[in-house]
């Protein structure tokens, strides 16, 4: 019941410890400042129950419009229903809302790309790499991969992993997962796992795929310390010219500044940008438009128009809600373009 | 030690008051102690003796009053201050670190050090040798390297004594040092005390054993209900007079008549041998209805082990236990209780009290099964009134039945434990040092209850290191020595000399 003239927008954020989410939140804050909006930003620390409680608290305070980075797709419908009861609306980012959630009302939006796209882009980068360096590939187009996974059961872990494997298969590779294990998003754990794997599987793997940059950097550090590089005498020389000083390419997701820095040193091979600015801007503009009563079907947010034809992934695969889906593309971040993203 | 104060006192505690929630523990108490004397501090349980000494030792801060040590006013904020100023103390409750060695316990907080340039490290060898020398000078046979917790209670007590003496203090406080010692060991303690006295040390001695007072004390101060009644030369007093001062009324006999006549055999023990080969072996005896069986012996005679084994607390290698003629297996206290046994253990703190729980719960915890009402819920009212009744009978001094037992004086805690086992209505009650730390008046209450239990056909086993108690209360006295049953004395045979003879048979 805030009587201030300022529009109020709630931001329910999964977990600020995550790089993407932190960047997302930072941008929302900037946008709110600019737009003169009162922002209520809350961090659920990866707990869906907490997020639900936070939503209820904000609703009881009279907040009606939200940008949400949910914890689970499956929880989005319930959140949408609670918001709909107060005649509000929300834009979901990062983790996609379910079709049912968007069907709750026309005021609910997808402002994201599904996590699986990150995996698909990783697959694309890997394909490019082996196209350019066919000698690195095993017999019969075999990719011998070490995989470092995020916290098990975390949606980003699940979708990114599944998608990269599927993507490679679709491109005709045989993927042999030499070893895979969770490092819980943590660089230190990734480094430890990698230490053991280098000892166990030296020469038996030709790529390291990770679910985020943090773990990728842990793996890079481990490979460097073990001198698993092109030229053990000079850790900065990319002798074989494949774009990395390491013997094998390491891939991350997030395009954090540190990761870009590492790429600039030819250490990390590539990463994927999940566009935190794009997603947050789209979501925020949608929420703001609703709050100001300016939203109408087909609204253009952050220069994006809603989709018109159903794709193959939920929720943008359902004609009934396609007009509520704004797909913000992921971007491959490679040698060629990484400089664009350095802040 | 030269008498360096004008007043002639080494220690003066002037007008000390101290209150706890609900209790005025000390009320304007004055105590003056001369160097080179043994000053007995007497009083019933809860009179405030330990509290007064804890104020002296810096454990409690008195609410008002002054402490003058060697002519100078002092204020101790911690035990360390007291120790540094020449006051050491043997505490009423055993206070040691069970997992560390004897030598580490003795030198705790003041270990001998060795220098390595600017660095200082423990001198383990010196610590060992000093401990050995200390033990030797005190005639104690304790290996400095032994783990403290592995020693018997009495040896642990001996270590406390050795430790207190080793501080070279000018005032040594001994709060019931003899409560877990037998008479022989108490004699030994007295030799140590006399030696201290001859060196000019003032010893403040607290005990509930009357006879000791007249053996050792030069002066006696008597406390009652937190006040000082007065200080007397030991020679002016006799036992009855002293008791009158403590209790505030005349007392008659020390022991009530035990009128019961033992009937048929209730408990029979045949060839009981402990699993621990250093403990008792091949012990046989029986216990009759209405009988009080005393168990005597020196410390280390394994009396405690024996009764704890009967109660299922220790493993038995062989032997049989029969209750009312039927063979029983006692694997845990629960089994024992179900066969009608009860045991008051000797280690009040370790295996007796629940410090944070109320007096009521402490009293009733072993008999709750009898107070289940509708839907098996506890009948609090009956429990409370029964517990209160028992404690009243023993004159337990407590602010209320809801008070945490840790706030009671040591002797009153013991009374609560006695109440606990009385409340279980045992057929066979085993009491291991039942009157340890209990004042004369209350001892009489306990004896009376024992006599009454016996008259009502209950049987009692009483382990005791107090000769008069054994002689005064037992129908028969069974003597153990080094874990073996060396004889049972009855009637005229039951004399102090005979007990000692049997108790030292293998020594």
């Amino acid at each position, binding site marked *: 019941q805030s009587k201030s003239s300022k529009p109020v927008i709630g931001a329910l954020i999964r977990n600020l410890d995550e790089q993407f989410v932190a960047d997302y939140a930072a941008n929302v804050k900037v946008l709110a400042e600019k737009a003169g909006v009162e922002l209520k930003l809350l961090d659920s620390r990866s707990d869906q*129950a907490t997020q639900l409680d936070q939503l209820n608290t904000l609703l009881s305070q009279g907040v009606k419009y939200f940008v949400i980075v949910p914890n689970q797709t499956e929880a989005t419908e319930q959140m949408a229903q609670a918001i709909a009861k107060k005649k509000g609306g929300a834009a979901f980012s990062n983790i996609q809302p379910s079709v049912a959630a968007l069907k709750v009302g026309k005021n609910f939006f997808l402002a994201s790309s599904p996590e699986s796209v990150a995996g698909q882009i990783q697959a694309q980068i890997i394909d490019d790499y082996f196209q350019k360096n066919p000698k690195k590939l095993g017999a019969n187009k075999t990719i011998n991969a070490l995989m470092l996974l995020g916290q098990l059961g975390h949606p980003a872990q699940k979708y990114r992993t599944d998608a990269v494997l599927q993507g490679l298969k679709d491109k005709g590779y045989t993927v042999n997962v030499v070893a895979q294990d969770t490092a819980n998003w943590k660089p230190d754990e990734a480094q430890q796992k990698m230490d053991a794997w280098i000892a166990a599987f030296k020469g038996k793997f030709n790529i390291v795929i990770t679910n985020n940059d943090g773990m990728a950097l842990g793996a890079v550090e481990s490979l460097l310390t073990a001198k698993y590089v092109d030229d053990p005498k000079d850790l900065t020389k990319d002798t074989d010219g494949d774009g990395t000083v390491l013997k094998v390419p390491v891939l991350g997701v997030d395009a954090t500044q540190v990761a870009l820095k590492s790429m600039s040193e030819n250490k990390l091979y590539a990463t994927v940008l999940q566009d935190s600015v794009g997603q947050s801007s789209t979501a925020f503009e949608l929420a703001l438009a609703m709050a100001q009563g300016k939203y109408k079907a087909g609204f253009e947010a952050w220069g994006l128009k809603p989709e018109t034809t159903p794709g193959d992934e939920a929720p943008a695969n359902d004609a009934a809600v396609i007009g509520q889906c704004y797909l913000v593309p992921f971007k491959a971040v490679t040698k060629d373009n990484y400089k664009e993203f350095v802040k | 030690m030269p008498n360096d104060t004008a007043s002639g006192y080494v220690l003066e505690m002037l007008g000390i008051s101290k209150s706890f929630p609900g209790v005025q523990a000390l009320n304007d108490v004055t105590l003056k102690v001369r160097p080179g004397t043994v000053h007995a501090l007497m009083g019933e349980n809860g009179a405030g003796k330990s509290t007064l000494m804890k104020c002296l030792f810096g454990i409690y801060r008195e609410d008002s009053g002054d402490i003058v040590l060697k002519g100078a006013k002092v204020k101790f904020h911690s035990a360390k201050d007291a120790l540094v100023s020449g006051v050491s103390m043997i505490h009423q409750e055993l206070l040691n670190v069970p997992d560390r060695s004897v030598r580490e316990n003795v030198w705790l907080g003041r270990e001998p050090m060795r220098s390595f340039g600017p660095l200082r490290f423990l001198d383990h060898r010196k610590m060992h040798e000093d401990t050995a020398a200390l033990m030797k000078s005190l005639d104690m046979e304790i290996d400095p390297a032994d783990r403290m917790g592995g020693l018997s209670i009495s040896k642990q007590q001996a270590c406390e004594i050795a430790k207190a003496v080793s501080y070279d203090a000018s005032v040594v406080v001994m709060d019931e040092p003899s409560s877990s010692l037998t008479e022989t060991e108490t004699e030994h303690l007295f030799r140590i005390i006399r030696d201290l006295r001859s060196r000019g040390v003032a010893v403040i001695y607290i005990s509930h054993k009357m006879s000791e007072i007249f053996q050792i004390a030069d002066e006696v101060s008597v406390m009652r209900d937190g006040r000082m009644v007065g200080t007397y030369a030991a020679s002016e007093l006799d036992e009855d007079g002293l008791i009158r001062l403590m209790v505030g009324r005349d007392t008659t006999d020390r022991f009530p008549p035990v009128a019961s006549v033992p009937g048929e055999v209730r408990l029979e023990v045949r060839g009981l041998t402990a699993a621990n080969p250093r403990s008792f072996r091949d012990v046989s005896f029986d216990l009759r209805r209405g009988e009080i069986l005393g168990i005597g012996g020196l410390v280390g005679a394994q009396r405690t082990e024996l009764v704890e084994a009967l109660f299922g607390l220790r493993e038995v290698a062989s032997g049989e236990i029969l209750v009312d003629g039927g063979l029983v297996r006692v694997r845990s206290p629960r089994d024992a209780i179900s066969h009608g046994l009860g045991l008051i253990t000797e280690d009040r703190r370790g295996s007796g009290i*629940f410090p944070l729980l109320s007096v009521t719960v402490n009293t009733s915890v072993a008999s709750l099964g009898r107070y289940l009402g509708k839907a098996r819920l506890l009948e609090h009212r009956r429990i409370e009134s029964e517990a209160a009744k028992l404690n009243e009978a023993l004159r337990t001094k407590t602010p209320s039945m809801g008070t945490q037992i840790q706030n009671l004086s040591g002797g009153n805690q013991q009374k609560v434990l006695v109440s606990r086992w009385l409340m279980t209505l045992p057929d066979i009650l085993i009491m291991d040092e039942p009157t340890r730390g209990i004042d004369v008046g209350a001892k009489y209450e306990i004896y009376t209850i024992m006599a009454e239990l016996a008259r009502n056909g209950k049987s009692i086993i009483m382990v005791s290191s107090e000769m008069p108690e054994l002689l005064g209360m037992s129908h028969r006295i069974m003597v153990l020595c080094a874990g073996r049953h060396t004889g049972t004395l009855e009637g005229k045979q039951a004399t102090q000399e005979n007990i000692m003879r049997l108790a030292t048979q293998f020594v």
Partner: protein
Amino acid sequence: MAASSTVTAQAPARGLRAFLSKNTNIVTFVVLALALGALTGGRAFGLDSIQNLLIAESVRAFAALGVGMIIITRGIDLSIGYVVCLVASVSASFAQTPDYAAALYAGKDFVILVPIAAGLMTGALCGLVNGLLVAYGKLPAFIATLGTLSIARGLQLIYTKAAVVGSLKQPFKNISQGSLGPVPYLAIYVAFAAFVVWVLLRHTRRGTNFYAIGGNPVAARVSGINVERELVMVYLYAGVLYGIAGVLQAGRLGLANALTANGMELDAIAAVTVGGVSQTGGVGTMGGMIVGVLTLGIINYGMTYLGVDSYYQLLMKGVIIIVAVFMDMNKNARR
């Protein structure tokens, strides 16, 4: 009342002090609530706010009641979070809509009793394992439950293959989400569970045994208490409470996954400690546990309501926990 006529209690001090010593926790709670009320001009306490608070804390309350009893027996339980997570997952897996293709038992339609029973049994089983390890295995509770934490976590992942168990049937969700007039079902369940725990602790022999074991395990044994059995029972009861927590959590969220209830053990333990349950054993009441849960609840709720930055929330939460327990600890520290 006094056993002996010799000592008279100082009547006036006692009433006040007893009141204070029983109620520091409540005082803390009230102070925080008033502070929040003042800061928001009372707006933070509308009916729906109170409903929210009750709903938000209810699941934690079950966990707190369970671990509270365990702490009374001088134990601890670190496995709560993952046990609740495992329970929620198992329970949810039997409550998925049969037409949901990704359901664990796709096509199967179980009656509503199945997910409930499965959840409770899972919780009870975990509790039982903890209890057996602590009581008969003689493991320190910290380590035993650290072990089961890891095991429960592994099992949850194996069972769900790390996927979200979602799309739960509405009747199942209604169990958690419904309300009786203005009173959420969840609050009613908590009230009922709290009542049972109160009866157990205050009015049964077993409850007294818990206090006795926590107060002095050796003395408890000597007093004829079957210490092992009672320890198994307390962990078992706690397990059942975690079971309830898990089932309700699944219903409340309409899903369960590997992240459900993570870290709940610390919240629950902090709550009961704030509520005066002592880690040294033998001390604590049902009322204290609930007050503790509400206190932490109002901290969380208040900071959310006030929109405190989440980084600062962490900081302040730490400070408030410390201050609350400090006051509780030192309320009768005078010697």
